[in-house]
């Protein structure tokens, strides 16, 4: 895998991130990643705002046409593809679970969960733990085909355990690398690898 492709891929997944975040995702050293990102800025493929980077629109399109070349072998790998399909199945369950996290039944109405009912929250976090263990087995298979995906395994578990310990923003807060944020990035990553569009 070419490092320059990986850096741009990392930027496409993280959207608006600093060099350290992107380095973690793609498994390159932070200094190396920062240098390559600055190169991308010089060549007009990325822009830097503060310490964060963004892909330019043209680079985004160029990147998308590049996946089939980089992941040709993986796309032919039946084990990897079977694991990807299993991920899509469990993704449906994760979405339902996140809905139960974000909304709650109050007097017959489905309203935004204000997280005042700790019993409801604890039940959903427990279900997330159960789902995670099944998802982790699938991620193990995906990482066998593409080791950098271990990043998601480590960080999903870490987000889950923070939520289990009571820091519930780690379930789905979009502003941090919460379980749902990471899951969404993972899904995006996998769709690019296998060359599919998001279903909804």
């Amino acid at each position, binding site marked *: 895998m070419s490092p320059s492709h990986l850096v741009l891929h990392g930027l496409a997944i993280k959207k608006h991130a600093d060099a350290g975040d992107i380095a973690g995702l793609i498994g390159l050293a932070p200094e190396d990643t920062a240098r390559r990102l600055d190169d991308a800025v010089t060549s007009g493929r990325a822009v830097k705002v503060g310490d964060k980077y963004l892909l330019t629109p043209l680079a985004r399109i160029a990147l998308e046409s590049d996946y089939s070349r980089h992941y040709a072998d993986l796309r032919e790998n039946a084990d990897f593809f079977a694991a990807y399909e299993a991920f899509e199945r469990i993704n449906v369950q994760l979405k339902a679970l996140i809905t139960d996290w974000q909304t709650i039944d109050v007097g*017959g*109405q*489905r309203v935004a969960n204000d997280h005042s009912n700790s019993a409801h929250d604890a039940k959903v976090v427990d279900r997330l733990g159960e789902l995670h263990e099944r998802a982790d087995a699938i991620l193990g298979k995906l990482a066998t085909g593409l080791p950098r995906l271990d990043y998601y395994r480590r960080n999903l578990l870490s987000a889950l355990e923070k939520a289990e310990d009571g820091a519930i923003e780690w379930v789905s807060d979009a502003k941090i690398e919460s379980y749902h944020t990471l899951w969404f990035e993972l899904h995006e990553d996998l769709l690019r690898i296998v060359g599919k569009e998001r279903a909804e």
Partner: protein
Amino acid sequence: MATPLGDWVLALDGSTLPDKALIGGKAWSIARMGALGLRVPPAFVITTRACAHYLHEGSEPASLAQEIAAGIAWLEQQTGRRFGAGPNPLLVSVRSGAPISMPGMMDTVLNLGITDETEALLAEECGDPGFARDTHRRFLDLYAHIVLKSETALATDGRPADWRNAIASDAGESVPGRVEEQLARAVHAVFESWNSRRARRYREHHDIPHDLGTAVAVQAMVFGNMDENSGTGVLFSRNPLSGAPTPYGEYLARAQGEDIVSGKHTPQPLEALRTHMPHVHEELLTAARLLEDAGGDVQDIEFTLEKGTLYLLQTRAAKRAPRAAVKIAVDMVAEGRIDPSEALARVSSEQVRTLLSPQLANGAALGAEIAARGEAASPGIGTGAVVLDSDEAERRAANGEAVVLARATTSPNDLHGMIAARAILTEQGGSTSHAAVVGRALGRPCVVGCGAGSLDALAGETVTVDGQNGIVYRGALEVVTPHENDDAALRQIAAWAAHQSPVLVTSEPRNGVSVRFDENIEQADALIAALEPGATVEGALFTNDDKAVRAVIAAGAATIVTSPALPALLAAAQAAGRE
């Protein structure tokens, strides 16, 4: 001791009731029913000590395989069946059972013992090849998910050989060919689930020692679809809708338990069983009385009849409708089974709120045209426009419209529509179908089993659903709101609650200064934080939110004014009772 078959395995023959720490919660409840003299499908248990040994030594005790074989031999002798062989095959379930229930433990593997050969024998025995094939698929599905940790999806129209291949390629290992090896692997999977990440964290969080271990219950499967004298059903020791002290239940001949729950078939009332097999009916009622006496609460009992023999599968305290919860709590104090404090703990303020919610006005139903009738599954009155689709129900309710959801049957996919609806109607299913169970849990009026094709024509029409009587009226009928003082059982609950409550809760406005919440509802937390000791608080919040009641008591309030008062009074009494 339930008879030991060696150092690590006990046959649960009902002779005595072993310690829950040794045999775990699942086996304990099987043994308890056996010790009461009730017939349960024969079972043996691999003790928590065997698990501790496995986890400590990294391998199972040397004699365990032999003792499990003795357990299987005992099941074979009890059932007259053979494990993994003919002429009548024995299938078993394998369940984890820790002494304390905790997350992360292994789910149940059902139908273990089915093979290509025993599938054919089972098909012959029950005369239903489709059922035998599905039994085979369910086993492979559970074994793959639970033991091999595979997420393979098995097509319902596939063949066993294809299923096995799909599992082997996904899991990287095959389902063992020998049933004894399948059983050993399932037992090890239960042992290992003791050390699952979630189970370990749970124990650390709750100071539960890591060396307790889990037991494994291995139980013979029984089948309710073998012949005309087979079937399955559910029995409540009292009526869970009205609370009347008479047993209440449903029975479906020639069927398995999931057929009742799915609502795809409409079961018959228990009376049908009395006519068909009076001795079985009598045996069931005796069992219900025994279990209620032993449990001190209304029991919800699952049973199966296999070729005329009654087996009790499970019993637990029954979920009940609000009216029933109040009546049963009051009745059980009168019967000397529980004290008033326990009675208060068994009625929720939510149930009282429901009872004090709007009902059909006297005479409102006279002359009203009946649009449909079915089985009363969850009481209450709901009026709205009939909608046939759950997504549409949710959308229209979100726009402020009152809707009534009407479906052929409901499944978990309809939950959002059921939540959005003022009432729920189904064409098929009985009072233990999904729609009925969920409708009761949500407190929605619900009428089930209105008949195939009976509801489509009502789409768009405004109806009034009477969930207590199972009637759907055309149009919007007049509705009244009951008062807590008009009902003897509620008055009794109120008297006990007033005695136990640490504060005065009343619907009568008080003289003097009171902190009013209605006008300042968005600042409720700040108002509570600023309360003076001995304060009087006032607002609808306290009728609708137990937490607010507890918070103002903790903050030192002496009087709560709200209407109706009983839900808040009950919450206040329960807060004191819990201390």
